């Protein structure tokens, strides 16, 4: 039995989750580094 073809939603969700987590992690790293370099 086949299954519904909706892999585009999975790809979109995985991409968005990764982007949000990575952007926040990198931003936080640079915010801390600004203080470290003083």
């Amino acid at each position, binding site marked *: 039995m086949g299954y*519904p073809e909706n892999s585009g939603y*999975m790809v979109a969700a995985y991409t968005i989750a990764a982007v949000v987590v990575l952007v926040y992690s990198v931003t*936080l790293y640079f915010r801390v580094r600004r203080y470290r370099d003083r």
Partner: protein
Amino acid sequence: MTRRERALQTARRGGLVTVIALVGLAVVYVRAIAFTPIERTQGPAQKIFYVHAPIAWATMLAFAVTGLLSLLYLTMRDRKFDLMAAASAEVGTALGIAMLTTGPLWAKPIWGTFWTWDARLTSTLFTFLLFVGYLVLRGALSDFEVRARFSAVLGVMALVLVPFIHVTVYWFRTLHPDPVVMKPEGPSLPAVMLTTLLTSLIVCTVLYIGLVMQRYALAVLEDVREEEEAGDGIS
């Protein structure tokens, strides 16, 4: 060791924990996409669950921790608790963005709509917006004591909503699925799917811890600078 040096050490450790969690997240992605079977009725979209549910868990953990630390600040007036609460709130809000975007991307192919104003979704969105308000409030107040007290009250109020969100699927008629792990009779998933989900839950929890460590260190560094600028010079 000065307060600044301790904060920088915490930031380095937090960074390491975050990198470990990000590598773990990559492993979860590979396991979920390539090594976890496709659910027959929902199709590939069901795999969004392995990202959405753990991120939602980490978000709610962040909000609950913020509330508890706010309560501690109000009772003990130790600024450490306020800074930790603020760190947890910001991380929770960032993770909340991922939670509130991955959820609708699962809902569209399964329910036929990105969003419905049922109890679970509405209360989750409301709590998220409360934390956005929490961060805006903190940004608008410059006096430490006033900022800490006002935001702690808001944090405690939001704490009440976290368990409420969990029970909405039992108390109200809602489209949102019931919990599959955190329920009295135990998890109801095939072992291979449960392993992927639990791995992701651990990774997201570690990610939350790493991010909070860094954000708390940043809050301490900001606090030290504010004190220096005010001429206190406490370190």
